[in-house]
């Protein structure tokens, strides 16, 4: 921990070696974060790059109050969000449609690998993906999501529901049959 503090301090004064150390420490995890928010790898790579440039140029403003990882992660999420805002002109349309919900047993979900789950998330329509990530992964409530994304609480709620629904359907579509002949695919 003391080590990280030193590295951060070195980074503040622009030490290139410390910067690389810091990058090596956090890049894989943050790439995971970026991948979740992006539609594909290329976008995730871009966001990771932009995020880390932000991290290094603003590192002096890190006050050692919260966790450093949380701070870096927040930057990554913000970069992804602002990219999303730029790319998708937001129409404040209320999306309150009722969907027939499907059931997926936890067992199936539990068996799917993280990488595949990530793939499913990436396939979601951009706004659903954002809402799902912010709600599930960052633990934001709908009020906060609404503020971050400039949408209403209702839209956030329905987007989340829709995201879950799509994910479930995808899971069923791809892995639903698997249960019976799991051996073949395992």
């Amino acid at each position, binding site marked *: 921990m003391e080590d990280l503090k030193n590295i951060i301090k070195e980074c503040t004064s622009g030490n290139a070696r410390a910067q690389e150390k810091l990058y090596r420490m956090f*890049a894989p995890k943050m790439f995971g974060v970026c991948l979740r928010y992006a539609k594909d790898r290329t976008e995730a790579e871009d966001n990771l790059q932009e995020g880390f440039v932000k991290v290094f140029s603003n590192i002096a403003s890190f006050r050692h109050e919260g966790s450093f990882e949380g701070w870096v992660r927040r930057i990554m999420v913000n970069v992804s969000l602002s990219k999303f805002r730029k790319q998708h002109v937001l129409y404040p349309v209320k999306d309150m449609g009722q969907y027939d919900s499907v059931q997926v047993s936890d067992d199936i979900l539990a068996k799917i690998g*993280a990488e595949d789950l990530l793939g499913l998330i990436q396939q979601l329509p951009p706004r659903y993906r954002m809402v799902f990530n912010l709600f599930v992964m960052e633990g934001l409530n709908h009020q906060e999501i609404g503020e971050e994304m400039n949408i209403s609480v209702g839209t956030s709620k329905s987007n989340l529901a829709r995201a879950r629904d799509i994910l479930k359907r995808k899971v069923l579509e791809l892995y639903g049959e698997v249960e019976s002949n799991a051996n073949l695919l395992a």
Partner: protein
Amino acid sequence: MKEEKNNMDKIFREKLEGFREEPPAFVWDNIQANLSEMRRKKRIAWYSWSAVAALLVLAFLSGWYFNETAEKTTPRVAETERVEPQHEIIPREREIPVQENETMATGSREPESEQPGAEKTAESTAMPIQEEKLPVAHETIQAERTRTILASAGMNLIKRIETPEIITKEQERRHSLEKKEKPLDPVNYFTWEQKLMDENIRRLAHAAKKQTGWKMGLNVSPGYSSYAANHGETYASNMTSETGDGNTNLSGGISVQYKTGKRVRVESGIYYAQNGQKTGSSPMFSGMRAEADYMATPAGKLHFNTPVNITNNRMAMNSTAGIIEFEGLPKGAEVAANLESYGLYSNSLLTQGELSQVFDFVEIPLYLRYLIIDRKMDVELVGGVNTGVVVGNNAYIDNEYGLQNIGKTRDISTVNVSGTVGLGLNYAIGRNLSVAVEPRLNYYLNSLNRNPEVDFRPYRIGIYTGLYYEF
């Protein structure tokens, strides 16, 4: 149902939270490249700011230095200096209250307009007047600032800057009138086109306000340099004859201009220039100076002969720009002992030919440029101060043995201040490129020589021809 959702979220969270993937290597390379680019930009920004700061400090110091030296020099010199600014400051002070009165007059008109009945007509007349006054008032503030900046460094410039300010105001007014006189023919445009054009004009006007930028220039100038000199009586009685004149030379340098507004630019840079004096041979063998009457001179041959002071094996001679310290006895020159004690010195130097004192300067200017006419051919007024650092100090004798470096001039101050005025003609030959021809007068405000007996102020008239690049 709720539980199921939570479970699903939980599974996603748990699985993805710990998910890591090594990003491709080029991401780090890009980050590094980005960071170093940012660092470079920061450094450049820092450099340019510190350069600006350094120039301001330099300008301030040179102004201060000039004031100091002006106080230190002999009263005779101080007198002429004191007289000049008094003449110029008086009209300036008179000018300001007048302008204030004008703005006050418009201000006093307003309460009158509040009277019922006269309200509408008074307002309609008062408003445009006010609008016209405001920019003028603003300009006077700016002009005032310009004057004070210049006044702090070079008092001689005050008058010269003042007149251009007046001209430009008129010029600007004429411009705005021209625009109003040419109304667009409404028949030729659709209403929506008109709206688009109005919008474009509005944007253009808005963009023009923000206009700032840099301009780099490369200059060479053939020039003629001469001097104004005054000498103490004793010094003069033992001095080379004053049939001196100036010399032609070449100067040049690079300049950087920063555009602070539509019309005003601040310029700095670095120039090389040469100043000096030449003293020709005098046929007069007599008078107060010549002590070598005994020497038989062929008729028609010009000699100059000047008392020299020989002490501790060193020879020194009073000359126009100061005392020349000889490195040795020049070829073709002879030293004669003075038989009668005419002057202070016991010897005289006799030689044919011409004597010259040459000073090389590196000049760092701080100029203000004001655009008078903004056309394809721009006309600008230039004025400002230079810090002239003496980097070369040589004295020569040009006689039958050729040009000989005989030594240097004593008591030459390294840092000097000169004032410059000029008129620039700029012709755009491309989007960013322009050529300029600029006659300038550069006059040293302080005496180059610290010796209180010598007041030597060189000046130079040059036609600066240059190529400018705007970005």
